[in-house]
């Protein structure tokens, strides 16, 4: 049952993804909780994924969707490593406040 699907104009997707991306950026900027920052990054990745999928469909080229899959893989790997780092950080500082992680300062 493959019905013809009326696709939205690509600019819609562009706007939506830009918006989601910007929200992600703002999230990274305003939050101090490392976990939420991480989530904002995931949000940004997802906006890109959506755009890739949209373009893949518009250009009738599967490469975009394959790329999305690889992005998912990388995101999963990144989350695994990142969260374990977070856990270690928490164990050390008893907090995951990003502002406390300023040991790199000059």
């Amino acid at each position, binding site marked *: 049952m493959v019905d013809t699907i009326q696709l939205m104009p690509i600019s819609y997707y562009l706007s939506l993804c830009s918006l989601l991306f910007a929200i992600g950026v703002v999230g990274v900027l305003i939050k101090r909780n490392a976990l939420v920052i991480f989530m904002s990054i995931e949000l940004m990745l997802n906006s890109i994924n959506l755009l890739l999928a949209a373009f893949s469909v518009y250009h009738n080229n599967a490469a975009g969707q*394959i790329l999305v899959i690889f992005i998912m893989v990388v995101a999963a790997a990144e989350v695994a490593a990142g969260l374990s780092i977070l856990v270690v950080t928490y164990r050390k500082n008893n907090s995951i406040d990003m502002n406390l992680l300023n040991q790199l300062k000059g």
Partner: protein
Amino acid sequence: MEKYIFFFLSGLAVFSALMVLISRKPVHSVLYLILCFFAIAGHYILLNAQFLAVVHIIVYAGAIMVLFLFTLMMLNLNIVGEVRKSVLARVAAVIAGGLLLVTLVAALKGLNLSTSLSANTQIGMTSNIGKVLFNEYMFPFEAASILFLSAMVGAVMIGKKEEEEEMTNVQMTNDK
């Protein structure tokens, strides 16, 4: 019909994305993000990218966000309570993000994009994706699997309590 679905899903996505930022409890943020992911999965289905939609759910909602939730529970962050940035910093951040959005939109506006096509596209089907993935992108696929493995090992290694630490802990309890 599709139009309404699109706008509904978009609204849901944006709303839940905003809620991720607004809600003060990290757990709520996680749940809103999951909701957002569902909205995005809906978009995928709208694009007839079924496989992507399901994989998106399985990977993001089923694995990644569970990990987040899991970490959250393990660290039990709710008790700590969230510290917030100063108002100035937050305003600056929102302005910066807004600027980014504006410039993005401005940049994209200038692009000359082809108009929408009523595509009866089948590329999002599982079999099609599989064919492309295992023919043209075989090597990246294998490389990704190795990346996964190393990430797994890395996560275990990082997250493991250092033996020395543990030893000292044991010692301390023994001393007590």
